[in-house]
């Protein structure tokens, strides 16, 4: 129960960060990816701000947590990331912003999230291993 309350709080803070940074707006995400258009560099600062925290805080923490991470850079990683990027650039949503953007109450967010779950289901049917963490 305590762990669930903690996870709720972390999700809430994560979501507030997404809204404050403008990432719950798919247009703003696409404006970052639109390097040949009217480029908006904001996403770079979002990622920079987030990684500034994790880059220094994660390594000492991970030493005391027993988490295992895959290291191999294989075709699955590269192809998967490539397919994800295509969908991200087409829709302007990645999983976190899509979930918190449900509050926009726009049909596109609900359709996107439903299709995203279906895509995960296809992956499961195709025998891609499930989450380890």
């Amino acid at each position: 129960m305590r762990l669930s309350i903690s996870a709720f709080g972390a999700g809430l803070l994560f979501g507030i960060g997404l809204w404050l940074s403008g990432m719950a707006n798919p247009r703003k995400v696409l404006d970052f990816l639109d390097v040949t258009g009217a480029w908006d560099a904001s996403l770079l600062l979002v990622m920079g701000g987030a990684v500034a925290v994790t880059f220094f805080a994660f390594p000492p923490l991970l030493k005391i947590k027993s988490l295992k991470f895959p290291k191999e850079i294989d075709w699955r990683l590269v192809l998967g990331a490539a397919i994800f990027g295509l969908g991200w650039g087409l829709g302007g949503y990645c999983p976190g912003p899509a979930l918190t953007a449900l509050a926009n109450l726009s049909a596109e967010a609900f359709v996107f999230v439903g299709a995203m779950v279906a895509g995960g289901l296809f992956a499961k049917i195709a025998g891609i291993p499930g989450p380890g963490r």
Partner: protein
Amino acid sequence: MNNFTPLASLAGGVLIGLAALWLLAVNGRIAGVSTILHGLVVQPSEDRAWRAAFVAGLVAAGFAWTLFASPNPPREGFSLGWAALAGLLVGYGTRLGSGCTSGHGVCGLGRRSLRSLVAVCVFMATGMIAVFISRHLLEIPS
């Protein structure tokens, strides 16, 4: 440059980093949203409770925020078919590649993982290609 919001975006990014730090420090979990959602909905494991709580927090944040600020209106001319195709690609791709912008980006780069750095470079690149094709070649309003 168009609608650049450096301060709000940097501050929001720091909050996202702190949220990932919180989940790792207290729950011992990686804040990778695609993996958390997959382990909740598609491939349920015995530890669904914290996943459900994290997703609930993420969704609740949106409703809390839109109590005080206006939500983002849907994009005119952006068809639901495109939204569905985009969602399928994101759902499948994040499973094949084991992560998204949060798992590989926020957390993976924080772990100084070369594997995650490769993933981030690849999805940024194909994301830019997809936008070039959809916005500039196909002229889909998005």
